[in-house]
């Protein structure tokens, strides 16, 4: 077990900078997920921690020791790959014990570790099979077992669930979380799936264009995104963005969306945004669950308005409604009983207590 630190880590491939100076501290026992769109540098970062890629600049520390030039086998890490990377000519038990056998562990020790890991992952019955005879989910369990038996300082996961179907992915996600709760090994997990990131992580690191956009707990990222990228990347359906500007109206602060539509900000928000320029081009960021059907007795800060629905998507426990405001498509979540229908008007309300205001140019959340 160990903590992992990255100090101004850079990775250059010839002219291209894949990772542009990353600082990251991962505490002992922590489960950290690196998430971002493809090409954001998350996998490269993981591979640098593993030692599979050289780092161009900066330092990587595992357990306080700089490991920049330490070969992978001496870093005491274990990695789970997207395509499992099981040795096809070995049985499950042989796959799991390969690392231990290379290090000449006593046979009894190997056997007990493999048995224990197999029991934990519920693959005891498969121990004598070859990878070819296993399903995708079973293979991924074996790959995890291979990591567990090594009892390493750090687990590294490189998109381990991407090759599985949706249902199995959810199941394995829970499995991974359970394993982490048992072994408590420091874990770095890479995925492009924000749901996976949110559900698994103690802390999520959102990356984009080789840089870290924001680090935080899943809730922090969801409720207090730092940038437009994070705000739109985390959450599904994604946050709505509508162009707007601020205006003063009778001692109150309004956010004006269209000529005919403006909302009065609740006092807490008004105080926060008071100092902003009234001419800046801004974006109103609002999550779909904060656009709902209007209720007779609205709470303070919940402002009603009329919308012409384009499309509705009944999901069962809720209905997603889509309408257009100033050329931007907006998604709202209403009760299935709200009477939402394609192409018909509906009175909606927006909860401005949970709004975000962004600078349209810089993308910063204000």
């Amino acid at each position, binding site marked *: 077990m160990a903590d992992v630190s990255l100090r101004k880590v850079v990775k250059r491939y010839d002219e291209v900078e894949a990772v542009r100076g990353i600082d990251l501290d991962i505490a002992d026992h922590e489960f950290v997920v690196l998430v971002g769109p493809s090409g954001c540098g998350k996998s490269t970062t993981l591979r640098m921690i*593993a*030692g*599979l890629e050289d780092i161009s600049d900066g330092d990587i520390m595992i357990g306080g020791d700089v490991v920049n030039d330490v*070969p*992978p*086998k001496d870093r005491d*890490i*274990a*990695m789970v*790959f*997207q*395509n*499992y*990377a*099981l*040795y*096809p*000519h070995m049985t499950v038990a042989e796959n799991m014990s*390969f*690392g231990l056998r*290379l*290090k000449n562990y006593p046979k009894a020790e190997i056997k007990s570790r493999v048995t224990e890991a197999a029991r934990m992952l519920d693959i005891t019955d498969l121990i004598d099979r070859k*990878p070819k005879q296993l399903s995708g989910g079973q293979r991924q369990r074996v790959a995890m077992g*291979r990591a567990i038996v*090594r009892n390493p300082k750090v687990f590294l996961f490189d998109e381990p669930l991407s090759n599985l179907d949706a249902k199995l992915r959810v199941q394995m996600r829970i499995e991974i979380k359970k394993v982490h709760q048992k072994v408590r090994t420091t874990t770095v997990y890479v995925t492009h799936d924000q749901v996976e990131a949110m559900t698994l992580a103690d802390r999520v690191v959102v990356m984009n264009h080789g840089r870290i956009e924001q680090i935080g707990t899943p809730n922090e990222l969801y409720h207090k995104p730092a940038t437009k990228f994070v705000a739109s990347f985390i959450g599904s359906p994604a946050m709505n963005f509508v162009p707007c500007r601020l205006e003063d109206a009778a001692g109150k602060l309004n956010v004006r969306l269209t000529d005919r539509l403006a909302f009065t900000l609740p006092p807490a928000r008004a105080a926060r945004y008071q100092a902003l320029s009234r001419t800046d081009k801004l974006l109103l960021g609002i999550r779909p669950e904060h656009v709902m059907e209007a209720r007779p007795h609205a709470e303070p800060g919940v402002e009603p308005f009329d919308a012409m629905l384009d499309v509705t998507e009944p999901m069962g426990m809720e209905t997603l409604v889509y309408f257009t405001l100033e050329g931007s498509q907006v998604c709202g979540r209403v009760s299935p009983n709200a009477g939402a229908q394609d192409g018909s008007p509906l009175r909606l309300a927006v909860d401005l207590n949970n709004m975000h205001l962004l600078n349209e140019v810089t993308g910063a959340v204000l």
Partner: protein
Amino acid sequence: MSTMTIDKSGPTRKVKYGSMSRDRTWALRWSYFFLTLFAIFSLTPPFYMLITSLKGSAEISAATNPWWVHQPTLENYIQLLTSNQFLRFFWNSAWVSIIVVTVTMLISVPAAFALARMKFWGSATLATGVFLTYLIPDSLLFIPLFKMFAVFGDLTGIQLVNRWYVLLFIYPTLTVPFCTWIMIGYFASIPKELDEAAIIDGASWFQTLTRIFIPVALPGLIAATIFAFTVSWAQFLYPLVFTTSTDQLVLPVGIITTLIKGDVFNWGQIMTGALLGAAPPLIIYAFLMDYYIAGLTAGATKG
């Protein structure tokens, strides 16, 4: 606005049920036709050899049906198999081939691994270069090679020309490049994550090669082995040039030089010798056929 006529009758072409299987039937018929043709074409010479090897010399020179044996005899086989000379050729061939195959594998497998996986400066160019050397025909190489060994003998006093073991130095120039090339292909088809997993598991490059790559690429390894064996067993030009004394000859050259005396062809024994000479590769093919086909057709290594 012009009026539109809508044709509601649907497609006029009649649907041919079963046309798929009819296509297949014809495809199969043609396949069998050409396969039969090919089989006849390639099996006629060995059949003729077998027939002739079972005839006595009187029957061979008699004007009887050459495709039939009237008085089968094992005389040719007995003569050859009890002749020390023929057995000498056989052993020379066997030794040369076994050693060449071993040497080839010991060189080309690690070389292929290095070229395919341990990315170093110039490895791609080197890989192409290895293959290019294979493209130079031996009929161009034998004169300079002969000269090299002659000069080497003059300079050091170590005489290699006209010793069977000189072939151990020459054959690998044919087998190593091609086998390396085959193995590069196999190793390249192994997913990159497999060696990364092995490296993280603590394997050295050498252990990755011996414990992961060689077992996984076994079909390719067998294909390369068979190739190397066939090349060294059947090589004719080099031994013809480099060895002359009868006790130094390998089988293909030995048969030609000792069983043809001037313009007298001992057909029965030539055919028998050739047939016996073809046996070892045939036996090896038969045993390793499954692996060989698997090796030729697919990397089949997806983890």
